[in-house]
């Protein structure tokens, strides 16, 4: 029972390592899931080699969306922005290690959408961003 709320999810929700904001930053983007009001802002600092040196998120929402943001940022430290462009839904699901129904999937994937919209410099976080990087 309660496998959706694996220890790691509760842990990252209660004690996030990457909560906060970065000012100045190189990339910042925020958006929300209007369905449930989850709101997330992600800030990144990028080194001269194009790799992420620091990352932070802020906002509010359910344990799944907040833990997903924390795990995601943890995983992108040291990654090149071009690698981030290729992150997909599957990467997030691997990080979380749980199966989700369609409603909660939206919570889990909100941070990735925001991260990729920021990296691509787009005005809007759309569902297309959850597939392989193109455009």
């Amino acid at each position, binding site marked *: *029972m*309660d496998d959706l*709320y694996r220890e790691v999810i*509760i842990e990252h929700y209660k004690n996030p390592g990457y909560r906060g904001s970065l000012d100045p930053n190189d990339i910042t983007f925020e958006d929300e899931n209007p369905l449930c*009001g989850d709101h997330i802002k992600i800030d990144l600092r990028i080194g001269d080699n194009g790799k992420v040196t620091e990352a932070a998120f802020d906002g509010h929402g359910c*344990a*799944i969306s907040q833990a997903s943001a924390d795990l995601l940022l943890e995983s992108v430290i040291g990654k090149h922005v071009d690698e981030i462009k290729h992150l997909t839904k599957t990467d997030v699901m691997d990080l979380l290690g749980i199966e989700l129904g369609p409603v909660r999937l939206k919570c889990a994937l909100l941070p990735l959408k925001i991260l990729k919209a920021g990296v691509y410099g787009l005005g809007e976080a759309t569902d297309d961003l959850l597939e392989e990087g193109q455009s």
Partner: protein
Amino acid sequence: MTTFNVDKIRQDFPILGIDVNPGVPLVYLDSTATAQKPISVIDAMDDYYRTSNGNIHRGVHYLAERATALYEASRAKVAAFIGSDKPKELIFTRNATESINLVANSWGRAFLAKDDVVILTEMEHHSNLVPWQMLAEEKGLRLEFIPVTDDGDLDQMVFDQLLEQKPKLVAFAHMSNVLGTINPAKAMIAKAKRAGAVTVVDAAQSVPHFSVSVKDLDVDFMAFSAHKMLGPTGVGALYGREELLDKMPPYMGGGDMIRKVYLRSFTPNELPWKFEAGTFCIAEAIGFGAAVDYLSAIGMDTIAEYEHKLVQSAMIKMKTIPGLEIMGEKAAHRGGVVSFTLQGIHPHDVAQILDQNGIAVRAGHHCAMPLHDRFKIPASSRASFYLYNTEEEINHLVISLQKVVKMFS
């Protein structure tokens, strides 16, 4: 009065016996979203397709006659259920939402004009808000709102002041789907009438749960859905006062709603068919009649009394949980809905963990975003009760909520 035996009632609802996971029985506390269906309703629709399926009002053969008779009998039952003795005042629609849209599009387009005042409330479901916003945009109407007090009641003093603006229309929910507040509809309608307004009551949450009479309320329009009162989805009703319905233009054009059609014009059918264009959800309308029969056999006063006991007990037990706050707890009159927040825990997480314990509750804004803005919370969890819920289910809810709190502490 019949004696109320909940165990016997539960046997009429096959779905209440399922397990949501192996060994985890369903505890259904989301009847405010949609109610479960008794066998008699399921059978009525099944039987219709097996023995009586034909198109209504469009044939002289055996099945067409039979289907028409069943459909119209159902209309008469639903009309009688809400205290109307004129079945033609009862128009079948898809749901409460369509009923309100019908009033906005037909009556509103014809009889409202620029700068007319329409009074709504802060506790409306989006379906009694957005249709008026759309019409206001089109016509340049002025929308005013009766505020909700901290206790969860409508502020009647502000309502009195708003009535001085001579509104053309006053529309409000009889019972809030979030706060559970039962508004003093009869008194509000009387005041609105004295001010010269037409009245619309969104009865989606009241008609299923206690006895409502359009005669007693003296209301002009009333909207409700079958699926929240043990009936099927896809059918609802609009009650309208005959004099008003007569003057209204048709809402949709097509078959059934006409008397005569020429190449360039038509004359509309009489009531109620003027508003029922196209082949209708016949089986569902018949199921609606069966739902009303089921509720009437038990008695709405008996149901209301039982639900009242359940919700009182639920609120007392839920309040023992640390960090739990009930929205609209102190409302003067409330029905079987308990929306709540748990400090530091998102409603989605609450609902998800309850689901793992077999308990179905709703999480989110329950189609009432402005009301959540009013209470400055993004979302809430909601447990709602109906005639088939039990005290044991409430205990299971409370124990599971304690588990939720523990997990996040």
